[in-house]
């Protein structure tokens, strides 16, 4: 499950090691064997930094998911690990009362991630149970997801600041950067765009001043680009068309894993050991009425087959898989004709790795099959056509019809909103007449609770009235967002990730790393919300620039408010290209897609209780 992340450009293992140490400390806050009760939202994350063996070595006897209602365990010690949410305090209080009334003596501890709040303490105090707990904090912030991807996994960061004016998440963002700088050195050049980025930059500057003496680590990261999601709301609203992006859009990737039917991951028959590739066994049709058992399947770059195809456009998937299959087949065939003992020995050495590849190829073929089934469907193609029309600013009346039909059919609400936001961003807002009409249609179809959702969207500027002057056509033209001739097989531009549309956020980054930096697109950036800045952080004394000449410079890109898998693919594409001549490390508050982004903006009715 845990990806190996030691290789490549930056040694991220140390981040994980520190988190592991911190977790160990938190677990040791209660002596002896214990029950470990986890916030369901943290479970996947904890799996990314520790394995069951590690937990056992710290006395964890049993693991549970924190739920409302009764909680029974034989363990005398109970450790809760939670995000500081009030509803959890109520669940836990209930448990304590239940155990007390049943005369069970237990020891309790609560570990807050990343830190406790006064509000949570107050709730425990009011309930009269605060004294029962040992309180501890586990400052988990940066979680490595892959060799080049890090995330804080704070899903509400964007909403908290822009909608509620709450700066807590931005503080965590600044903290995470301070942590990175303490490990990999002060980052000399910082560029940023957007109000959140500006605030984070100010916080870092202040934190550095307050710290005074700094550790003198030679800087390993050459520059940092901070980018608000607000700058480019367009890209996440488009359907991602890379393999990894599509898996996320269609099945959902959470904490580096996708849930697949058990029959795909663990086929009933043992896979053939030799004799070439066999066609993937069709999964057994599930028994009606019986829920299909789903198991998580890890997706990261340690899977060699996956790392080769994750960033490719879906239209070339089949040929890639085919090539890989032939390669494995060749290997097995050669095995059969091998004669000499030494040749067999050489072969056996590689056998294990080929078998791993073989198995992963089988699973990815199954996933691809499923994806292609969906991408062939008329509803998918129609949606794609509508998106591409909007991006190119053609046939927009047709898209208006599409949205209307979509509401009439009562498509999932987030799909409607997604298209509407895209329409709004590319067609210079919503004309009052159209908006009044669509609003009524939406309210009458999805219920008037959505009035609040729509209001939130307006407040965030995702839906608005027409501006005096449309900005999108100019941005589109000057950044070259639409690329007509695109070669998906051998991509020559990042636009391959969306079959012809180059993600705006990545185009901005492309410009930022040019020698002139922001200057070349200065006027264009003025059209986008929030301030633009470019600063030099003075290095602490004694820290010499020690960038090894044989290594490409590293740029850290921080997406505040989330990043999609396709955008990551586009950045990887730039890393691989010679002209960029640098490696990118991606850090974000959350890995998102259009759906989860809208989700975080929806009114959560029962969040606190």
């Amino acid at each position, binding site marked *: 499950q845990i990806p190996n992340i030691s290789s490549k450009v930056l040694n991220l293992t140390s981040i994980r090691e520190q988190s592991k140490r911190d977790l160990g400390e938190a677990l040791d806050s209660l002596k002896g064997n214990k029950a470990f009760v986890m916030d369901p939202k943290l479970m996947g994350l904890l799996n990314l930094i520790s394995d069951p063996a590690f937990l056992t070595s710290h006395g964890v006897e049993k693991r549970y998911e924190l739920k409302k209602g009764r909680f029974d365990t034989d363990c005398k010690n109970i450790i809760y690990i939670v995000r500081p949410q009030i509803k959890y305090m109520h669940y836990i209080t209930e448990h304590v009362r239940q155990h007390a009334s049943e005369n069970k003596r237990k020891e309790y501890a609560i570990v807050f991630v990343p830190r406790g709040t006064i509000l949570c303490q107050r709730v425990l105090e009011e309930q009269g149970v605060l004294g029962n707990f040992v309180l501890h904090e586990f400052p988990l912030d940066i979680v490595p997801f892959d060799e080049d991807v890090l995330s804080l996994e704070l899903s509400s960061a964007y909403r908290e600041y822009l909608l509620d004016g709450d700066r807590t998440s931005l503080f965590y963002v600044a903290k995470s950067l301070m942590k990175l700088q303490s490990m990999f050195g002060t980052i000399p050049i910082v560029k940023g765009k957007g109000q959140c980025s500006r605030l984070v930059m100010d916080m870092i500057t202040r934190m550095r001043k307050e710290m005074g003496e700094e550790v003198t680590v030679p800087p390993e990261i050459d520059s940092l680009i901070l980018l608000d999601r607000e700058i480019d709301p367009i890209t996440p609203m488009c359907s991602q068309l890379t393999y990894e992006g599509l898996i996320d859009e269609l099945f959902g990737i959470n904490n580096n894993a996708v849930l697949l039917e058990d029959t795909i991951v663990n086929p009933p028959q043992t896979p053939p050991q030799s004799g070439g590739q066999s066609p993937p066994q069709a999964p057994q049709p599930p028994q009606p009425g019986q829920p299909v058992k789903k198991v998580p399947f890890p997706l990261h770059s340690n899977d060699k087959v996956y790392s080769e195809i994750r960033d490719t456009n879906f239209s070339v998937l089949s040929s890639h898989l085919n090539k890989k299959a032939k390669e494995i087949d060749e290997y097995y065939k050669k095995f059969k004709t091998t004669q000499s003992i030494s040749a067999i020995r050489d072969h056996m050495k590689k056998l294990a790795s080929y078998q791993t590849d073989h198995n992963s190829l089988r699973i990815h073929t199954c996933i691809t099959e499923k994806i292609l089934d969906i991408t062939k469907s008329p509803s998918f193609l129609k949606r794609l056509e509508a998106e591409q029309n909007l991006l190119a600013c053609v046939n927009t009346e047709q898209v208006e019809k599409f949205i*209307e039909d979509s*509401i*009439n*059919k*009562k498509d999932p609400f987030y799909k409607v909103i997604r298209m509407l936001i895209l329409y709004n961003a590319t067609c210079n807002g919503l004309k*009052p007449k159209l908006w*009044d009409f669509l*609003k*009524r*249609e939406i*309210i*009458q*179809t*999805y*219920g*008037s*609770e959505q*009035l*609040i959702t729509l*209001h939130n969207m307006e407040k965030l500027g995702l839906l608005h009235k027409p501006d005096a002057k449309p900005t999108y056509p100019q941005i589109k033209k000057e950044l070259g967002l639409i690329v007509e001739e695109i070669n998906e097989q051998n991509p020559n531009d990042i636009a391959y990730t969306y079959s012809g549309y180059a993600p705006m956020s990545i185009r901005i980054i492309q410009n930022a790393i040019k020698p002139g930096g922001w200057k070349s697109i200065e006027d264009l950036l003025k059209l986008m919300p929030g301030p633009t800045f470019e600063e030099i952080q003075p290095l602490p004394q004694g820290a010499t620039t020690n960038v090894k000449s044989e290594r490409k410079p590293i740029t850290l890109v921080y997406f505040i408010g989330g990043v999609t898998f396709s955008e990551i693919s586009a950045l990887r594409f730039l890393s691989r290209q010679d002209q960029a001549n640098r490696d990118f490390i991606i850090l974000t508050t959350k890995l998102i897609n259009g759906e989860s982004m809208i989700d975080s903006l929806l*009114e959560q*009715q029962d969040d606190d209780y």
Partner: protein
Amino acid sequence: FTFLYEAFREPNFEKRLGSFEKSKEFFQQNKQDKDDQSNAQLVQEQIKLEILQKELENTTKESFLGMSISDTIYKLIITNDSKKAMNLKSEFKVPDKRFWWIKIKALSALDKWEELFQF
């Protein structure tokens, strides 16, 4: 919007309507703002809808509260009450196009293919 927020969280029917009224009045105060005027109208429709749904619940013993207008129409067609569905359509000025979609969906769910052909 605070009133509206409260209204959706309020389980008690009478109090819920009260909160809706308050939020409607609040919207209406803003005479210049066209958006708020249309919001007021939408809230007014919600009040009307919930009262209607309450009546429906009393007469049919089915649950209706909390459903959107489209869903209410759908349920009425499913439970063979096309007349009330038509009433609702005109009451809330549901466009023909959407109404047909709902009707087609409902009739095909009922396997009433003959009726579907007829219209």
